[in-house]
């Protein structure tokens, strides 16, 4: 049986790529389900949806602690939204920018080996992405800019949920480590 030399080993193992795909689906479907149950413009639903997003993202980054995971997750999510739903086309630059900045921050702070750097990266990613998304919303509602202020309030509420999701994600990881599903 032939074994590949270490130099030709791909950067991403298949099981890591599978984990990224599973989490992309998990985050998308759970967000849709929360929105369907609670109604899209309900503040509590917004908090819950964002809380879930960041906590699941934290779990993914602990599960696949490699530089580029966040970026690849974003690319896959937005690509699927673009190909299957036609939407999200204009969110791609915002997502890439936010993803690159967050990856850079994690590397600067000491990499994926430290827990708090992952949390800081996710918080930075969500903040940048939401700010860029607001800019894109302006293109959509430019005829009625007053609507943008209403959107900004909802986005701020959403970000509050995203921040609450960071300790929740940490707690998830603790439980998952205890169960032996996420390794140290």
């Amino acid at each position, binding site marked *: 049986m032939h074994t590949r030399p270490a130099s030709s080993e*791909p950067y991403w193992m298949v099981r890591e790529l599978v984990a990224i795909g599973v*989490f992309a689906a998990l985050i998308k479907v759970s967000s849709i389900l929360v929105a369907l149950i609670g109604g899209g413009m309900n503040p509590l639903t917004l908090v819950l949806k964002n809380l879930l997003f960041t906590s699941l993202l934290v779990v993914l980054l602990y599960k696949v602690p490699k530089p580029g995971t966040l970026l690849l997750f974003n690319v896959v999510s937005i690509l699927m939204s673009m190909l299957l739903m036609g939407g999200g086309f204009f969110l791609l630059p915002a997502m890439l920018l936010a993803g690159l900045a967050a990856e850079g921050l994690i590397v600067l702070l000491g990499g994926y080996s430290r827990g708090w750097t992952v949390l800081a990266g996710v918080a930075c990613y969500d903040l940048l992405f939401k700010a860029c998304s607001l800019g894109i919303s302006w293109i959509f509602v430019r005829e009625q800019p007053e609507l943008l202020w209403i959107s900004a309030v909802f986005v701020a509420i959403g970000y509050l949920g995203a921040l609450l999701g960071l300790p929740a994600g940490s707690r998830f990881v603790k439980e998952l480590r205890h169960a032996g599903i996420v390794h140290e």
Partner: protein
Amino acid sequence: MQASFMNRTMGNGLAYRLDARAKMSISLTASLGVIILHSPQSLGLLLAASLAYGLSLNRPKPLLLCHAFLAVMWSVAFGFMHLMQTLNPNPVPTELSRLLVPFLRSAVMVNVILVMALSTRIQTVLTTLKALRLHRCIAIPAAVMIRFIPSFLSDVRQVSEALKTRGYPITPRFVLSHPLLATRLLIVPLVFRALRASDELGIAAELKGLGNLGSVRAFRPPRFETRDWMASATALACIAAAVILQVFTGGPRGGMF
């Protein structure tokens, strides 16, 4: 989207006979079109074209439901704007046409998204992703993402049934009145199941040699036929006609153009 993952017989309309790549290109063209256009007349033309495309599904019920939902959202937004105008001593001028434009954009996108979601099988999407020659780092997570959604929905059903058996009613009221408990009861088991599924799928994929996508060939490769070219060209022609209409009729100017 859920309907597209069901294993039921697909319909006979044009939407079902189009190649998934043609539908993807129509969706992308439409999303580009709604960004460029800002006049209600040209967006109205695009809405009529997208509605004709949506009706080729031969399933008016989901279309009707989505449009009814949009109409309700528009009425709520208009009502709030009217209320703000009444309360504010220096009212912001609220024109019906200006408030209509964002909703026209959404309606166009709803039509094209529904066609994509309700007339395409998962297997077709997977084959199309392969045909698009995406890099393995994107193709594998994308394929897993599509494949995992139905099993995740079935997990959600199982967990909510288990909770009902234990006496927890998973209703919107329960979720809103006990958000933390609902999250703990629903999400924690789902995350555990998802992580287990991810490990199992990863091992299965490695054993099946999924990492080497280059050697895998589709049993029935997708073909981009004349009707697909025609549909894509028609979408482009509709956008061009809407742009011409906008140039001639004018309409409210947006902040960008």
